[in-house]
């Protein structure tokens, strides 16, 4: 056993590096005292080390800690996505003026971001229901606190409280579902669950109940309807950096865990064919439930987004809609579907972070989040507004941007699995989404500025960060072969 644990530790280095970063960040915060904004550099250093360890895991397919965690291409892919988004969030936070409201605690802020990342790293690899739950709670608790970080602002306090209460209810549902599943199968690791389900010796109704409760728990984390209701308030009230992090990284980790759970637990390995199309065990047709949820999520997200005037709230609803699109990949039960989901996350990371970052820059300068105040900004801050336009085009899914490629592959996967209706609805939704994205665009470029028409200057580092997000968004829209190949190669999970 001791050897096995030591061996596992050597394959667990990214997470250990994050834990060490967390501890160092706490100590650094104590030592630096007044200059505690420098904790950010500690965190960046920690993230660099973590990323190196992650990259060294490419190509491995192992299970560690007595089947608790899998180190496989699937997990590594998501860990890279998470690490990249972690870097961006730390850079954003160093720029964000909103965070100054609680300056004294900025050390804890960075520390909690690391804690959240640690939770998400474990989420994407966990293969045991117990550990999945713990990891989910770790990242959730850190994000509850972060959502209320600027607690002086009433919105932020409200956001945090709502988040905690809904979060508690949903993790209660999740653990209830898990306990029923354990009662049926007698296993907490998902391979054991799968083995027990394949014998066919269980009551379908109990499995259905467990499945619905677990979907409710996961659905909360990835904001799919009808478990999305907390997110607009939280996204609006939380500091914008955290909103962006929740909208991208937290969703990616949640989806990764959900994919792994559903795929490994409910797959019928006897019917696993070479073309990457799989079948589920009898008794629980969860893809139909998920399809309904996907339709609901994207429609609701888009329809409500039309009426929003607050940019953060608009992006919140837009990210709900995107969760709906992404969920389609899980509905179709093919490796192609999952690969396109993973691809979507890469693209989504850049374009969504870009939109959030520019909203943050504008809020830094003009102290507004109202879309009406964006009127004529195109003349006052041309570079930033053009970048924003690209990000919005990409979020809509118009070529030649990354968003188009992401949507294209996703829709193709859904069509080739024969879900034509689903694609039709998604396409209609894309058209609807055009409406509210264009509204921002129109305000920025087609309306003359009123009142103050002076140019707005941004610092060099801000511009560099904009380009760091802008270039991939355009680049992946033109040259996407490699990233598609990478996503398709990373579908492989341990044990399948």
């Amino acid at each position: 056993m001791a050897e096995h644990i030591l061996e596992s530790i050597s394959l667990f280095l990214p997470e250990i590096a994050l834990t060490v970063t967390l501890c160092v960040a706490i100590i650094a915060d104590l030592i630096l005292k007044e200059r505690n904004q420098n904790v950010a550099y500690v965190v960046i250093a920690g993230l660099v080390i973590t990323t190196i360890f992650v990259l060294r895991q490419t190509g491995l397919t192992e299970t560690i800690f007595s089947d608790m965690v899998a180190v496989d291409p699937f997990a590594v892919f998501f860990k890279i996505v998470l690490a990249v988004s972690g870097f961006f969030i730390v850079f954003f936070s160093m720029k964000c003026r909103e965070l100054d409201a609680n300056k004294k605690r900025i050390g804890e802020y960075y520390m909690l971001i690391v804690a959240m990342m640690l939770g998400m790293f474990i989420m994407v690899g966990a293969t045991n229901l117990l550990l999945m739950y713990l990891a989910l709670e770790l990242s959730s608790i850190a994000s509850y606190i972060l959502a209320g970080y600027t607690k002086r602002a009433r919105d932020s306090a409200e956001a945090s409280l709502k988040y905690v209460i809904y979060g508690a209810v949903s993790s209660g549902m999740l653990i209830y579902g898990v306990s029923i599943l354990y009662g049926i199968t007698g296993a907490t690791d998902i391979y054991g669950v799968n083995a027990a389900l394949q014998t066919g010796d269980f009551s379908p109704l109990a499995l259905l109940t467990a499945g619905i409760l677990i979907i409710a728990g996961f659905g909360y984390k990835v904001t799919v309807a009808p478990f999305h209701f907390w997110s607009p308030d939280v996204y609006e009230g939380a500091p914008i950096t955290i909103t962006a992090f929740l909208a991208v990284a937290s969703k990616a980790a949640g989806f990764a865990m959900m994919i792994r759970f559903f795929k490994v637990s409910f797959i019928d390995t006897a019917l696993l064919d070479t073309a990457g199309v799989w079948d589920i065990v009898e008794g629980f047709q969860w893809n139909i439930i998920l399809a309904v949820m996907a339709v609901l999520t994207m429609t609701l997200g888009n329809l409500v987004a039309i009426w929003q005037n607050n940019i953060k709230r608009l992006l919140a609803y837009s990210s709900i809609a995107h969760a709906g699109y992404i969920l389609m990949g899980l509905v179709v039960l093919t490796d192609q579907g999952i690969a396109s989901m993973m691809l979507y996350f890469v693209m989504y990371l850049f374009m969504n972070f870009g939109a959030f970052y520019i909203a943050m820059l504008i809020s830094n300068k003009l102290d507004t989040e109202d879309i009406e105040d964006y009127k004529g900004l195109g003349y006052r801050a041309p570079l930033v507004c053009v970048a924003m336009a690209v990000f919005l085009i990409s979020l809509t899914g118009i070529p030649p941007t990354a968003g188009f490629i992401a949507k294209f592959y996703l829709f193709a996967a859904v069509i080739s699995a024969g879900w034509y209706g689903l694609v039709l609805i998604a396409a209609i939704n894309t058209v609807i989404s055009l409406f509210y994205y264009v509204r921002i665009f129109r305000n920025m470029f087609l309306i003359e500025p009123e009142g103050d028409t002076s140019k707005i200057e941004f610092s060099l580092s801000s511009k560099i960060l904009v380009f760091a997000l802008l270039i991939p968004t355009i680049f992946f829209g033109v040259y996407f072969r490699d990233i598609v190949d990478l996503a398709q190669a990373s579908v492989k999970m341990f044990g399948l």
Partner: protein
Amino acid sequence: MDLYAFFFYFFAVLTVGSAFVVVFSRNIIYSAFALMFTFFGVAALYVLLYADFVAVTQLLVYVGGILVLIIFGVMLTTKVFSVEMKTGTLNLLPATLFTAIIAGMLIFVFSATDWNVVPDQEWDTTVYGIGALLVNEFILPMQVAGVLLLVAMIGAVMMAARDWTKLKSK
């Protein structure tokens, strides 16, 4: 009815009954103390399942820790003696229907399902086994739980630290 069944039903009724008081009492202190009996009842049920370690841990953590803090919090609120919870009943009909459906489904599931049951066995001591599992098979969840608690603690301190002047609304 043998002695075991008698004790089981006694503690089950105690647990559920006091849980009802927790929910329906309008006085928050009563709710808190009723919760104590719920926890006690659950601990007793654990004892009946040969889970002595879990039972005492339940007492130690829930009754001795969490509930004390809840009561502490209640007593520190301004109008200690007359904290009336504002429990309005909204949407009575849909809520009742929804609850009834959920409850019916759960009860049906619990009674109709063929659960995966571990064969009856008398345990002498469970502590050693639990300890061995915690540092072998379950070492990772245990460590993660440790980090989780650290984060929760720092977060709680951060939330509670008094360094603001007044809530300002945007």
